[in-house]
């Protein structure tokens, strides 16, 4: 898919533009706030996103064999994706390029789903310190265990759905 030729992205862009025009007519202050928040978000996130995409470029070469073998088997794939996802740092959107690489390489859909869920449910290391500070170690530990269980369910659910109704094929 190419963003410059894919019309659906132009539609999304136009919808966002209409939302801002509406916003500008309704409340100028809120529109300025929205622009400022967006700008701050872009400035803060872009270096991280740049590093994450660069990292995945190198990772996909090193992990190609590992992904090819382990992510094709649903059980090994879901378990290794759960562990890999918990260890992967960075913002939650950074997982999508890696998930795409695995999916295109023929990885099992359950493993891809588990990888995304595992990376997103707990922000290691940046989020966990703040979570312990705000909600305590007991709450964090309970959420960690529940997150692992949820990740496994996510992986097997996707695998089962795709087994009976094939939605994705390698």
């Amino acid at each position: 898919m190419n963003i410059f030729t894919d019309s659906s992205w132009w539609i999304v862009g136009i919808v966002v533009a209409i939302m801002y025009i509406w916003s500008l007519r309704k409340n100028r202050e809120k529109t300025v706030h929205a622009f400022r928040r967006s700008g701050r978000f872009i400035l803060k996130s872009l270096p991280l996103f740049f590093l994450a995409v660069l990292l995945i470029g190198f990772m996909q070469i090193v992990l190609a064999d590992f992904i090819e073998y382990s992510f094709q088997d649903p059980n090994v794939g879901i378990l290794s994706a759960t562990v890999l996802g918990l260890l992967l740092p960075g913002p939650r959107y950074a997982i999508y390029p890696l998930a795409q690489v695995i999916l295109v390489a023929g990885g099992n859909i359950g493993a891809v789903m588990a990888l995304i869920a595992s990376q997103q449910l707990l922000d290691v290391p940046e989020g966990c310190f703040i979570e312990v500070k705000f909600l305590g170690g007991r709450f964090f530990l309970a959420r960690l265990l529940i997150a692992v269980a949820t990740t496994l369910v996510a992986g097997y659910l996707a695998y089962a759905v795709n087994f009976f109704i094939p939605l994705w094929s390698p």
Partner: protein
Amino acid sequence: MLDAVMVEGTLFILLLIFFVWVYVSFPTRIGEAIDFSVTNLIETIPIFIVASLLAGWVDAWVDKDLVVRLFKQRGLVTGLFVITCLGIATPGPIYSIFPIVYVLKKKGIDSHFLIAYLTGQTLMGPMRIPLEIYYLGTTFFVFRLISTVLLGVFAGLCAYPIHRWLNESLERVSAEFNR
């Protein structure tokens, strides 16, 4: 600020490790890795900008207190369903959500609902939707949206048997926090 530097630092160290690994083990494939990354960046940056504008708009127009106001005690599964959906609709990184979770807790909302809310918020967010559709397709996104709602309810049900034990701990942490 320190957190952001730590994350970027960790990513940079990982990048260095994988660069050296590729340089030593697959020296002929360095160009391929850089090509992949550059193409990915060029194609993604416009989506990233659109997604950021969308997140900014939601931040300006969706009242954050709405999450607190909308949620009232309901039946267990219905309540978990509603709060998971609210979690999905709440934008922002996880550490910006803890103050909301803290407010929900102070309003007397049980810990299993908080876990469902955090599950929904972390698994899906308004800003990430365009990126997810771009990288993984609409079918994948729709499936993940439905499964996120189910997983939020599942996570809440997992926490339900220990919710009193968690509530005690949360109250203790809250008291220490306010001291």
